[in-house]
């Protein structure tokens, strides 16, 4: 350990997520075993009791997300972790957390689907499930780590965002990030957003500020006399599902509080973009070969760059639109049938050519494959 409290370890992304959660103040975890996320539950069961926290292995993932919701209102920063099938079971609960503005973190260590699919193999197929998995209109925030270090950093950030925006936040890890052991610097001066209890005087639990956000997070049995209601509700929490205007206003705010605050949430890494003619838009483990490809292309004199997204929801459309105004071609490698490319294309609005580089089956793109796409794009550009 160094003087400022940092320590360096060689650990899996899954372990890094656990350490990030603990560092962020997570004191409740409920989960159910599933490959490739089980290490998170296993390590939580070791780490939480000594720091005064609670680990519960629940009967299923439905119970897990609902116990997390109860724990969050109980006063604890709370988290669950799973993979495809389990995350599917949690969707009703995630929607409930969005409706009731319950801060919580859901870690999805993505594997190949649909169905039981590929339990031990990576994918990025669940990115739209994170955003649209539950019924009804709501917004969540989704962070995507590319490395064990980011599994640590972005898990901390996920807890901070959950508290700030009173919203379920996904960490969309994947089997590669989750199981790759690499160097992680932990501890030191990290930013943690503590829970702040709102003032009790005249408190209306769902009265939002001008930015659409609720001030602080109250806990049960602290004198608020809270009513947490899954039906549409007014500022007091009293059901208002039969009131079309109040219902519309609530759903609009639940969406706007994320959408309109996108600049506070967007987190991207720009690599060699200033003069890039071809830009790779990448995220998660796929960013690893993508960045290597960009570097290799640069060494061959090609004006290539990369935009790496650490937050995919809300989608950073302004950033991509701006990039599309400067680069000629955007290439989107992803381990699915070609999904985020739809958002990239929408945001580009025809100002740049957008090339999809999807990959199914779980084998990560090779750097050569992405570099080949960059070179093809350069040639195509010359031909135009």
């Amino acid at each position, binding site marked *: 350990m160094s003087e400022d409290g940092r320590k360096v370890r060689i650990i899996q992304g899954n372990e890094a997520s656990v350490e990030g959660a603990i560092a962020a103040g997570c*004191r*409740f975890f*409920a989960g159910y075993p599933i490959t490739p996320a089980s290490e998170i539950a296993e390590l939580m069961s070791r780490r939480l*009791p*000594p720091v*005064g*926290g*609670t680990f*519960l292995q*629940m*009967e*299923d993932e*439905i*119970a*897990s997300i*609902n*116990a*997390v*919701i*109860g*724990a*969050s*209102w*109980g*006063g*604890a920063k*709370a988290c669950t972790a799973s993979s495809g099938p389990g995350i599917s079971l949690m969707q*009703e*609960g995630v929607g*409930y957390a969005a409706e*009731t503005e319950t801060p919580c973190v859901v870690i999805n260590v993505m594997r190949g689907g649909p169905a039981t699919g590929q339990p031990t193999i990576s994918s990025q197929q669940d990115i739209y499930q994170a955003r649209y998995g539950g019924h009804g209109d709501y917004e969540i925030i989704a962070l995507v780590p590319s490395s064990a270090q980011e599994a640590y950093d972005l898990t901390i950030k996920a807890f901070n965002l959950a508290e700030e925006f009173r919203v379920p936040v996904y960490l969309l890890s994947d089997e590669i990030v989750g199981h790759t052991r690499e160097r992680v610097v932990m501890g030191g001066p990290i930013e943690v957003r503590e829970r702040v209890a709102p003032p009790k005087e005249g408190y209306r639990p769902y009265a939002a500020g001008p930015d659409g956000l609720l001030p602080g997070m109250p806990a*049960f*049995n602290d*004198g*608020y*006399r*809270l*009513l*947490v*209601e*899954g*039906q549409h509700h007014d500022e*007091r929490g*009293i*059901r208002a599902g039969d009131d079309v205007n109040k219902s519309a206003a609530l759903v609009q705010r639940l969406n706007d509080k994320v959408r309109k605050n996108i600049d506070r949430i967007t987190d991207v890494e720009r690599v060699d973009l200033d003069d890039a003619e071809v830009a790779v838009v990448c995220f998660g483990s796929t960013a690893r070969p993508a960045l290597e490809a960009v570097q290799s292309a640069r060494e061959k004199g090609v004006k290539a760059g990369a935009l790496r997204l650490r937050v995919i929801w809300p989608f950073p459309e302004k950033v991509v639109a701006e990039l599309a105004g400067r680069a000629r071609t955007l290439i989107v490698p992803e381990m699915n049938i070609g999904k985020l490319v739809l958002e990239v294309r929408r945001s580009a609005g025809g100002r740049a050519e957008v090339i999809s580089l999807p990959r199914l089956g779980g084998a990560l793109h090779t750097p050569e494959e992405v570099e080949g796409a960059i070179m093809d794009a350069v040639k195509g550009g010359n031909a135009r």
Partner: protein
Amino acid sequence: MNEIAEKYLRQEALPMIFCPGCGDGTVLGAFLRAVDELKIGDQLALVGGIGCSGWMPVYVNVDTIHTLHGRAIPVAVGLKATRPDRKVVVFTGDGDAIGIGGNHFIHAARRNVDLTVIMINNAIYGMTGGQAAPTTPSGATTQTTPYGNPEDPFDACKLAEAAGATYVARWTAGHPRQLIKAFKEAIQHPGFAFIEVMTQCPVQAGRYIKGGLDAPEFLADIRKSVVTEAQAATMPPEELAGRTRIGLLHRSERPELTQRLAALNRGEKR
């Protein structure tokens, strides 16, 4: 409005959704009297499921969460685990607790987590319009069993006991004083306490299962169908047949989950 109602009801949430003649009001009244006698208002955390019964805690002016269908118990477990000094009470229905939420129900009983689970059993899905429930009698007609129910019902109390509940009682909406006592016992019981309350549902069960019984007739019908242990002792077998046992059905002691979790926090291995 009487004193108890004034003291405990969340005025801005009124009026209640319950149909005329519903038994839920009686049960809620008994619960509030139990709470008043125990003087535990500030420690209460209430959790409602989905269905008519799930609305009962919404009208009580303490911290309350109205959850998803079937998921009241895991939410309650999360609340209890984060602060074990809370008195967490779940209001659920027969469909909510042992239909869609059956898995959570048996596992919470197995864990012996200190919750009070009050299951209102009206033997039907009332709020959705009178469909068959896992408690609907065999042969009964409902909106989804037009030719008679081809399935047999659960005995929720036997299920609770078998799964590990350490306090199990069954009463009816016709036993308000016994309910007050049972609620007090259940709330003070250090473990998973389950109380089934058989209630009249004149609008749905009364119409579809009972062939049009009104509320007083329905309640009288329920009272005729049940028997206490004392009554059973003197009853000839032919009269006893087909009747449902009411009263305190099971009570035992077993280590409670959140106490065991607290021991883990103190570094004791279990």
